């Protein structure tokens, strides 16, 4: 395929992917808005008013970046895993596999879909947050950089999950047993300074901690960990997972007998 044809194929995939989650917006865009509103009301407002300051900010201000990040992570991941597994399950993945689209473009199409939904939900949740608190921005570049790479990273994660999934259970196991615990323990609601030293060390093995803190730094200018290090880790993981995904697609894992 020449460059122009590849552009058309990529555009087709993106329109289809974005169209998919927009068509079912009640299932994709509304739930995060509602649940994040609840977080803001319950943790931020009711409980947060009794907690006092964290990292030099009100508790509401402190958790807002974490909650935004959490919704971006969840939505980027679940968009790709449901869309890709759905395509496998209904077999219309074959429409792509018989066509001349190269695998890297198939990957790019799904990732773009995941990133778009991640960013859109992030925006919606940010708007919701504005009803409860003021959002500040310490560094736009860092903030957008972290959001972009994190959503790419979790879209890739969703892709890998979708590639290996054989039945519907398989696409909810990883989010339930790995993604959600890591997110809750990833410093969304607290600074790891509050933890005993042992658990602080353990927390450093949680990749989501780095993303939440890097993002929080982009907004508030405070972080539990070194931001440069966090950002490098995110980039490194993104590259590694992309290579792995392409390897799986080229090998036909989970999609070709």
């Amino acid at each position: 395929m020449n460059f122009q044809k590849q552009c058309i194929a990529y555009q087709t995939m993106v329109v289809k992917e974005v169209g998919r989650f927009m068509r079912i917006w009640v299932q994709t865009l509304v739930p995060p808005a509602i649940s994040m509103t609840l977080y803001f009301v319950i943790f931020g407002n009711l409980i947060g008013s009794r907690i006092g300051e964290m990292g030099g900010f009100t508790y509401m201000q402190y958790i807002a970046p974490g909650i935004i990040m959490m919704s971006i992570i969840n939505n980027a991941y679940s968009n790709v895993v449901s869309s890709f597994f759905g395509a496998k399950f209904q077999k219309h993945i074959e429409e792509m596999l018989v066509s001349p689209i190269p695998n890297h473009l198939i990957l790019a199409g799904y990732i773009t879909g995941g990133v778009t939904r991640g960013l859109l939900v992030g925006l919606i949740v940010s708007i919701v947050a504005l009803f409860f608190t003021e959002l500040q921005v310490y560094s736009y570049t860092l903030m957008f950089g972290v959001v972009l790479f994190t959503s790419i990273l979790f879209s890739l994660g969703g892709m890998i999950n979708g590639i290996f999934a054989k039945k519907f259970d398989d696409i909810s196991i990883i989010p339930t047993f790995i993604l959600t615990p890591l997110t809750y323990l990833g410093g969304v609601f607290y600074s790891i300074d509050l933890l005993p030293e042992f658990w602080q060390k353990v927390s450093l093995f949680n990749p989501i901690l780095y993303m939440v803190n890097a993002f929080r730094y982009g907004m508030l200018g405070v972080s539990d960990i070194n931001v440069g290090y966090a950002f490098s880790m995110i980039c490194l993981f993104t590259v590694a997972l992309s290579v792995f995904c392409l390897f799986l697609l080229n090998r036909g894992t989970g999609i070709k007998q």
Partner: protein
Amino acid sequence: MKALQIQGLKKTYGSGLQALRGIDLDVEEGDFFALLGPNGAGKSTTIGIITSLVRKTAGRISVFGHDLDSDIAAAKACIGIVPQEINFSQFETCMEIVLNQAGYYGIPRRLAEQRAEKYLDQLGLWDKRHTRSRTLSGGLKRRLMIARALVHEPRLLILDEPTAGVDVELRRSMWSFLSGLNLNGTTIVLTTHYLEEAENLCKNIAIINHGVIIENTSMKKLLGKLNTETLILDLNSKLEYPPEFTDCQTRLIDPYCLEVEIKKTAGLNTLFKEIEQLGIQVHSMRNKSNRLEELFMSLVDNKKQAVA
């Protein structure tokens, strides 16, 4: 120019099942080619490998000279596939499905819309263009798969059991549609169970069984192999045992129904004379149909004996 060239194709599935045991097959450009075989013979596996949906274990395939290993994008661009099982997104409309497929082949939107209109119209789906595929009937779904396979105007159209589960009328219109395409230069390869239709339309034929090609010839030659014809005679009077006629084999299906297998070289006059002499009252006579089916069964049986 060969539209399709298959050499030494083998496939062993992950389960250890050897579905293809070394297949060689050539399809000339412009051919209307039938791949026949009983269930589980390896037809869909062969087609899956040609269309990149199944990984081969060994062998080479080229499509219009483009090798599937070294020149895959060019090969894929030449192929249109109508799979055995429905495989589109249940939530998309006919129009979306066809346009998306065009997009995957890199066809600009404007041209894609013209093509979509042309093929949806030709296949009687234009009125349903905004209908979600989920709500289409089985026959219409199959037609939608044909429209989708044609949107990039492939030189080789492959159909895996396109008429299975499709009613007679739709089947007829599908066959005449395919003949038209073939006349306009599209090479067609299909698998089917409706042997009589294959007999009328296909130029060349291969028969596959247990992952081996057991016959690969022109339809004409294959039918020429049929050196006998079978007649069914309905009788007015009862027969106790089958009578004997010159150059014939006879069998009583029931006391009022006689099956006569006669050499094509033998004239029917002798037979009629002998029937007359024995005083047998014939009420009606017909040709036993499904001649190809019989031949097919006998080929498959012969091979089995040879293997055993």
